[in-house]
């Protein structure tokens, strides 16, 4: 059953990534007074990602002579696997869960860290100095930001008393004020730290230092081309959606809408029918999409931070704030419940 789920999931995830790549181009274009893709597929360039995929697949496969051939080939697939593994434990609604894990939050943190290896390997194995610097930056940045990310993720875990994401979602039933983000001031703080740390651990602008186009050419991706480059690209968008989805589940009320409507609209109802699950999945998907759009918006508005600023933001601001949110939530729970 898990295998079937995974196969369905793979198709779904790649479709979402293709949509996000198109969305990024369209949103970026709108922000920049451009039109973006307009032709492929008739209108709005909606088939642009398919055209891109065909282009990427038919490109010449180049492995630099200086590269370590095995590691160079492994890295992009490791990145893809790391990003995809998130979805195994991410629930879309009460019953739409590929694999319900008791320790889903812990599992996600663990597989999320795999991506560091992919980028570090890619950077190291490319045999190029730009790639190496990119890989090193990734190591420094992502390992640091994992700590505030984990601390923030602990806040909803404390609030619900479980690491099971389905149960965490169920705890947020009933309107916007039951969402974990609005439960107490500390969880509100934790949400914003989560947003920052998530953006940083995804290497999205303004934290896109590992690929920093204007400094490191393309960082760890400099020597990659064709399908391998495409795999890195795809995994970036897959991870983006995954981390937004996780944020939506643990902070933004999961599959429950902001207004508790009763039957037949499904939100917040008790019955466990397929229609409910579908609506729930749509709700959480829309929340996650909103998160991704915000990330795109931020990317096209802000300049890039410098490596020392990135570390300052992490060690001086994110870490203490996340710790404060963690301790504060603990105290809040002890005092008020």
């Amino acid at each position, binding site marked *: 059953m898990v295998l079937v789920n995974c196969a369905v999931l793979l198709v779904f995830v790649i479709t979402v990534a293709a949509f996000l790549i198109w969305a990024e181009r369209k949103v*970026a274009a709108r*922000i*920049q*007074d*451009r039109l973006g893709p307009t032709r492929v597929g008739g209108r709005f360039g909606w088939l642009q990602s398919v055209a891109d995929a065909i282009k990427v697949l038919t490109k010449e496969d180049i492995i630099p002579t200086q590269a370590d051939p095995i590691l160079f080939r492994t890295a992009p697939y490791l990145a893809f696997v790391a990003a995809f593994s998130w979805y195994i434990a991410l629930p879309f609604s009460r019953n739409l869960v590929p694999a319900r894990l008791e320790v889903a939050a812990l599992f996600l943190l663990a597989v999320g860290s795999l991506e560091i290896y992919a980028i570090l390997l890619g950077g190291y194995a490319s045999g190029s*100095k*730009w790639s190496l*610097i990119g890989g*090193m930056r990734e190591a420094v940045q992502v390992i640091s930001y994992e700590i505030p990310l984990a601390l923030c993720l602990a806040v909803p875990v404390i609030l619900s008393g479980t690491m099971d994401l389905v149960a965490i979602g169920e705890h947020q039933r009933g309107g916007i004020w039951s969402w974990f983000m609005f439960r107490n001031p500390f969880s509100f703080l934790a949400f914003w730290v989560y947003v920052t740390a998530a953006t940083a651990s995804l290497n999205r*602008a*303004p934290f*896109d*230092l590992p690929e*920093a*186009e*204007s*400094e*490191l*050419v393309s960082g760890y991706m400099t020597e990659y081309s064709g399908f391998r480059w495409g795999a890195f690209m795809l995994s970036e968008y897959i991870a983006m959606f995954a981390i937004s989805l996780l944020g939506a589940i643990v902070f933004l009320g999961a599959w429950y809408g902001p207004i508790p409507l009763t039957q037949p609209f499904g939100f917040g109802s008790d019955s466990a029918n397929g229609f409910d699950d579908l609506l729930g999945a749509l709700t959480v998907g829309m929340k996650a999409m909103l998160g991704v759009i915000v990330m795109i918006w931020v990317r*096209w*508005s*802000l*300049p*890039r*931070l*410098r*490596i*020392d*600023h990135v570390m300052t933001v992490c060690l001086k601001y994110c870490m203490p704030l996340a710790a404060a949110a963690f301790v504060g939530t603990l105290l809040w729970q002890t005092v008020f419940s």
Partner: protein
Amino acid sequence: MTPLRRLLEEESWEPVELRTEEIFINMGPQHPSTHGVLRLVLRARGEVVTEVVPYIGYLHRCAEKIGENVAAQQWIPYTDRMDYLAAMNMNLGWALTVEKLLGLEVPERGRHLRVILVELDRIASHLVAVGTYALDLGSFTPFMYCFREREKILNLFEWASGARLTYSFIAIGGARADLPSGWVEACHQFLDELGPALAEIHDLLTTNAIFVHRTAGVGVLAPSTAIAYGCTGPVLRGSGVAWDLRRVGEPIYSRMYQDYEFQIAAPDATGRYPDAAKLPSPPKKAVVGDCWHRYFVRMYEMEQSAKIVRQALDKYTASSGPVGQPIKHTHKLPRGEAYLETECPKGQMGFFVVGNDSPIPHRVRARSSSFCNLSVLSELCRGALIADIPAILGSLDIVLGEVDR
């Protein structure tokens, strides 16, 4: 004794020393932020750069030698290709130099026309400088906004001269043609639209916290160093030296601007700009001579140039008569020499010409401001981070066509 302690006290155990090495990194000539075909060799210790050596010459086209084989008027298109982002200014520099040698006087209307064109091109050049600077710092959108405004200038120039980049419009003796009818109104409309566009860029960059962090206090160029290296233009003025050839240049050049009201874009010792009440004030971290001030000088200068163009449009419309007659290709240059520097967007561009009783100059030489501004790069980049290299290089705003000629 615990196993761990035994392990630590064993004699064979030695602390491992991490070996760090300096690496040489080749940045360019195919690098996204070297602004053309510039090659920098960085000596780096991790992310910290200890030495930067620029290598130039990838775009050398023997322009000066060509100038000694064609008539003075025929060399105008070659000046276009020096600073191709401000070709009008290049045309003017060469035209004025030869006019100085010939003792030629351009009619009043022609002078105002020239001011309109070069100041518009100064705005266009600074828009590219600011836009690509944002790009160097990883912000893509301001680049598009800058190019949208620049596009309007290029459209105006295309309307007047037929070309969008290499105009060859200002000629020795005047200009190729007068402005077409309706042009002045279109130019006024552009100037009206420029103000809000600049305010937008101020919002996106000047006051942006990340932008300030990346530029303020980075690459500080002391005024004495700037003068010692021969830096000119916004690079010199960013260091607080209020030196602008439009005010202090040779009479043949500064006379063009004598009736115009504008401020020299240079901060005083405290980092304040003259008449800048409406503009964002400098951040606390900013030091006079850093990347932020070099960037802001360009933003400030655009406003001043827009002011000059407005005045010039009025003066141009009020004046009558010809805009000047370009000299013929067979027009002989007298025996003698002339050198003239003009205030171009990138700095002081100088042209030198030696006449020999022949239409073809005996010797032609161009003194490039970008070349001098680039030479200070190694000084500024010592001890900077790798991410600062594009930030500093971008703030110098060089154009390789002019460095290599």
